[in-house]
């Protein structure tokens, strides 16, 4: 039976993990590869490196990171952030990334999803959606871009459907309302999107404690759960998370 995935997300700037890492047992907690390797040992199912740099010089660093990761890691990894074109994506995949995630560029040019899926296969293309609830309407969320700074007014559920139709292999769905809140995933949003598309949905944003992961799967109907700081700060290990999921009768690879 297909297991539900637990995915640590690493925000990377200039080739270093940022957003605070206080991981016990690493020589250098800022080294993305070393951190990813530690997650591999804890039986993480994959990792996502999110490139939060903007300039092209820094992009070169991220391509190097992808190449280094393919030499060092024995689990699948995705690189997200900053792709503008099929050529950008090709560079990253040639460097060794198994998948890329596209966000703002796909909203600006949905055809990028179609082109990239055709060139590299649907399994290589994640569409990341940053969604925020519309005040006063409990069943509507809008898509934000540019790192969550700009509201596009696009309906998040509709956008997920279109992304899937265009060949996205997975949706990485972040609730902006919950991101950083430690209140748990927005299960209503997650479930609504998971039911709207026939491709896997990764829930992201809001994890603060152990139970939240199982909630994202059971209540949110997600296929995978993503978290960052609870792992980086060593509050929870991937293994603990998976054990709690298994206790909730969720199939996991321990």
């Amino acid at each position: 039976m297909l297991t539900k995935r637990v995915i640590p997300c690493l925000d990377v700037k200039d080739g270093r993990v940022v957003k605070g890492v206080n991981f016990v047992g690493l020589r250098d907690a800022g080294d993305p590869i070393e951190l990813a390797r530690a997650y591999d040992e804890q039986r993480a199912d994959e990792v996502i490196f999110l490139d939060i740099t903007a300039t092209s010089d820094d992009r070169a660093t991220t391509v190097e990171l992808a190449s280094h990761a393919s030499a060092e890691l024995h689990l699948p990894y995705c690189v997200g952030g900053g792709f503008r074109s099929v050529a950008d994506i090709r560079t990253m995949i040639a460097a060794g990334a198994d998948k890329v995630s596209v966000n703002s560029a796909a909203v600006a040019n949905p055809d990028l999803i179609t082109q990239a899926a055709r060139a590299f296969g649907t399994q290589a293309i994640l569409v990341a959606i940053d969604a925020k609830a519309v005040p006063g309407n409990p069943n509507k969320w809008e898509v934000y871009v540019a790192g969550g700074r700009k509201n596009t007014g696009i309906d998040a559920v509709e956008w997920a459907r279109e992304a899937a139709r265009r060949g996205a292999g997975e949706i990485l769905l972040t609730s902006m309302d919950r991101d950083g809140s430690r209140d748990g995933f927005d299960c209503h949003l997650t479930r609504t999107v998971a039911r709207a598309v026939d491709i896997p949905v990764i829930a992201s944003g809001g994890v603060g404690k152990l139970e939240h992961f199982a909630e994202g799967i059971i209540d949110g109907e997600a296929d995978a759960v993503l978290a960052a700081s609870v792992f980086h700060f060593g509050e929870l290990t991937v293994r603990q998370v998976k054990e709690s999921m298994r206790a909730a009768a969720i199939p996991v690879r321990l």
Partner: protein
Amino acid sequence: MIVVVDYHKGNLLSVERGLRGAGAEVVVSDDPAQVRAADAVVLPGVGAFADAAASLEELGLGAAVADAVAAGAPFLGICLGMHLMFEHGTEHAPEAGPLPAGLGLVSGTVGLMPKTDEAGAAYKIPHVGWNSVEWDEADPLFDGLESGEYFYFTHSFAAPESVATIGRTTHSVTFPSAVRVPGHPVWGVQFHPEKSSDAGARLLANFVTVARAAAGRRGAAATMAEDTVLSKE
């Protein structure tokens, strides 16, 4: 020397490094002559069957792989590389005309996985993530591993049942996730051993062991042939 076949359709770094990590000498090549001379051949791949089959044909690599296999070189197809072992595939097939052809090492047509099971329950396709592979009989490829081991999958198409099935996995349907041409060192796996942590590393090491033994036999045979020539002189 293990040759990883490069048919210009994807990134082969992980496979190359996975094999090297298992102690193999590896070369990535799109040269049919090099494929024919290989001690063992690995055919990786992501992307679509039709495009890959066309590339193999265009580059003369399909015939080279078939020759290497016929000469007894151990073979491992990974993901799309496993699909290409079959006769045909429907992925990206033209609407009219015959289905794109694979290597035909195993009979049957690779098709899209259904999005519902027999009871009508919905499943997400692509089938992405870690799933278990079950087998009944020991095989050198599974040496040191136990039936039920988890491997990493990412695919939408699946191989048909045939006499070659040696391992199965269940998502919307139960499908062959490992095949072997009966009696030959010719395998295919639907999952990605190079991305499957310790279990995947073990499987690659098992293949490298088979490849090395085959190379040794060939080397010995070559030496014997040489000796024969010398003794005639």
